[in-house]
């Protein structure tokens, strides 16, 4: 459905591309706070929007995100020593602080002022919730910090994991706004997953396999609503907010914690999936947390010490044909996250969208592409700040709700889709 040039526009996010410029308007997750657990800990290589950077936490607890490579002759500073408020290159001892400023070149005479003129590219790195966020755009345009509810509730109410996905960010995002695949790909999970099972909404989900989709514009993105039959005269609505460019939230089930994702381009053929789970009004229970750590719900079980899932494309995602035959999993792949990853990666690193055949359930995808394209062009041509930059746009929630047939969903969920501190989610 998509013309080649628009597919390229939407999928390329490196420096100097139009979608890259769009992403550079937003605060984005650069890494999890747990990756820099203490002062002077090991630095971490971070690739984001095709830029290769190094994150470190200095002796005073300041976070830095600087060019990965030494200004001298281009070796990676990842091999360096994080000591005495700076990262020191392992090659010739050049040292940089968290602003990228070179503060010492040991081989040069102390009287000289050589290092004052050496500064690496550097970006802000700020902890909000469990995430270290960065902003790669023009410092003069830097927006206020993110206000998504999952990073603003108390620590004991929220958990975030991440995993590496080996495909372009857009096909991962499109999975997040396409609720119609849940009925098939994830059907096995509604009954069995400890983070999903036992809600009335699950019965409605399973009782109506042909949901009808409606999409409504919001200031920050879209609301994508799936409508299914509930009791006589009523519909069961599952409403997913998308906040530009890549935040989505899955509608809740019962009193389970609510989850969602942020997809961050690593380069054009890889992305990070940040997955969060939080409860607006209560701490997560030990059981819930241990299930999240174990890869239940929408989280993944990763290779220890890495953020690569144990089930990945090198082992065919540990696909189990027998489990597929028995109907435990629709695709034979275990776990919602890996079910999504396996199929989205199977499309190839950047899917050729000129060949796809879209249907009525793809309305959310069509609308999202159009909003992204228009925002990228408006930014490039008129400097218009895109939707989703203003933190006001972050204060959204997903909702699951039963409404009478005659009530339009936008009206019925108007309050439910606003994040309100201290107020529980609207759920069925």
């Amino acid at each position, binding site marked *: 459905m998509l013309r080649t040039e628009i597919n390229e526009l939407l999928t390329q996010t490196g420096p100097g591309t139009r979608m890259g410029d769009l992403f550079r308007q937003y605060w984005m997750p650069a890494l999890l706070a747990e990756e820099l657990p203490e002062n002077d800990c090991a630095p971490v290589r971070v690739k984001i929007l095709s830029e290769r950077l190094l994150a470190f936490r200095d002796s005073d607890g300041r976070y830095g995100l600087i060019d990965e490579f030494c200004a001298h002759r281009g070796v990676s500073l990842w091999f360096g020593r994080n000591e005495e408020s700076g990262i020191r290159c392992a090659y010739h001892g050049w040292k940089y602080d968290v602003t990228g400023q070179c503060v010492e070149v040991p081989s040069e005479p102390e009287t000289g002022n050589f290092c004052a003129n050496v500064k690496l590219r550097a970006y802000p790195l700020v902890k909000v919730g469990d995430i270290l966020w960065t902003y790669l755009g023009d410092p003069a345009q830097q927006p206020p910090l993110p206000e998504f509810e999952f990073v603003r509730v108390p620590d004991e109410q929220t958990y975030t994991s991440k995993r590496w996905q080996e495909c372009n960010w857009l096909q991962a995002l499109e999975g997040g706004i396409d609720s119609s695949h849940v009925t098939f790909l994830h059907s096995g999970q509604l009954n069995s997953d400890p983070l999903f099972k036992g809600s009335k909404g699950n019965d409605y989900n399973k009782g109506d396999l042909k949901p009808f989709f409606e999409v409504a514009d919001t200031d920050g993105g879209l609301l994508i609503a799936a409508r299914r039959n509930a009791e006589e005269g009523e519909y069961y609505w599952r409403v997913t907010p998308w906040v530009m460019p890549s935040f989505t939230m899955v509608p809740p089930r019962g009193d389970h914690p609510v989850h969602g994702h942020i997809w961050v381009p690593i380069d054009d053929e890889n992305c990070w999936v940040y997955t969060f789970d939080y409860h607006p009004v209560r701490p997560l229970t030990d059981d819930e947390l241990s299930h999240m750590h174990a890869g239940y719900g929408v989280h993944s079980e990763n290779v220890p010490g890495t953020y690569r899932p144990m089930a990945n494309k090198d082992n065919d995602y540990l696909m189990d044909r027998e489990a597929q035959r028995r109907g435990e999993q629709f695709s034979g792949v275990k776990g919602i996250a890996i079910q999504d990853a396996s199929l989205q990666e199977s499309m190839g690193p950047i899917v050729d969208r000129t060949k796809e055949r879209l249907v009525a359930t793809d309305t959310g995808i069509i609308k999202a592409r*159009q909003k992204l394209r228009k925002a990228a062009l408006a930014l490039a041509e008129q400097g218009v700040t895109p939707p989703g930059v203003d933190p006001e746009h972050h204060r959204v929630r997903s909702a699951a709700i039963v409404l009478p047939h005659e009530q339009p969903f936008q009206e019925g969920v108007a309050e439910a889709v606003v994040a309100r501190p201290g107020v529980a989610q609207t759920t069925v």
Partner: protein
Amino acid sequence: MPKVVYVGSDGVASAVDAVVGESVMVAATKNGVPGIVGECGGNASCGTCHVWVRAPYFEQVGPPGEDLEEDLLDLGVSDRRCNSRLSCQIQVTDDLDGLTVDVPAEQP
């Protein structure tokens, strides 16, 4: 029955007797007119029933009414022109008797 004429990129015209109330896409697919696919069944979701509406009918038919049609014409079709429409969103009426549309060589 109003007549609808579809002109292919090779210049070959197919004339169809259409039923009032059905869409220009359905009238084409029912009668096997080449070049109109209508993959999504008329939901303005796939963009495979794109046509260029000839004068003077375009004035009667008007521009896209639905957001989604506008999006699909923007994103999907190979050659959007000022008279582009998705034929699934044009309803056949008696007044449109003689409606003539050009069918692109390729649907997305």
